[in-house]
């Protein structure tokens, strides 16, 4: 596995994600999220998962993010209004939001501590004979062992489609 490309992609991924969350304009957030998804697709390729990388690009960037972009444009991208007070106060506002900020910081520290205590586990790499998961293998597993789940997914998509139309429809008067 290429160490340099891992670190470059990981840096892009984390920076773009931080900016997605830190952005006030949802339009910029959507574009930065597309960048972070592209970096993630690169990581999937490093992990020998070209199928995951492709559906990441096609479904996530090509479909879901375009949907988000449509909605941001449709609603004329209302930027988040700034609250009064200094910067720290704005970040960690009052009441439940303050609690939420503390909670997510504690969560991050907890996860990092748990992972640091794990023993280092080297990744099997392609030049040491680790196979790349081909679409053939995945398709075989998907339609044999996960056939029912696959069919259930199609029902889920249908329900989501009907639900989205019903929810977003203007009521007839």
């Amino acid at each position, binding site marked *: 596995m290429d160490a340099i490309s891992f670190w470059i992609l990981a840096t892009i991924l984390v920076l773009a994600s931080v900016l997605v969350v830190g952005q006030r304009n949802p339009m910029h957030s959507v574009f930065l999220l597309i960048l972070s998804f592209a970096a993630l697709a690169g990581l999937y390729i490093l992990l020998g998962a070209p199928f995951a990388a492709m559906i990441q690009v096609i479904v996530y960037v090509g479909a879901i993010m375009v949907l988000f972009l449509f909605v941001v444009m449709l*609603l004329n991208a209302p930027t988040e209004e700034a609250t009064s007070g200094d910067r720290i106060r704005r970040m960690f506002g009052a009441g439940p939001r303050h609690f939420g900020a503390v909670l997510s910081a504690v969560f991050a520290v907890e996860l990092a501590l748990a992972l640091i205590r794990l023993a280092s586990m080297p990744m099997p790499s392609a030049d040491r004979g680790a196979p790349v998961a081909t679409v053939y293998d995945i398709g075989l597993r998907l339609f044999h062992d996960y056939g029912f789940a696959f069919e259930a997914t199609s029902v889920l998509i249908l329900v989501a489609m009907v639900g989205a139309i019903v929810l977003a429809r*203007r009521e007839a008067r």
Partner: protein
Amino acid sequence: MPEPTLNSFLLLSAVLFAIGTAGVFLRRNLITILLSIEVMLNAVNLTFVAVDRFRGTVDGQIIVFFVITVAAAEAAVGLAILIALFRHRESLNPDAFTSLKW
């Protein structure tokens, strides 16, 4: 540059997940909150693919496929709700929707 181990991938996805949680808690724009949820879903997907690679199986990638499908359904329904809400209040601030507050 140290060779990335399974731990580096897990740590990276933990960082991403924490960023997503912070976004959900700190932002006051429903679109950004939905985007933060997408960041969290992707952190989990990264874990699945990394562990998959580590174990030499393909089941994780199949679960990633299902997660992406569910994320698509979630985005469609979530954005439909968002449009309906925006029609009611002309606002995307979650603090504007307090009718159900006790």
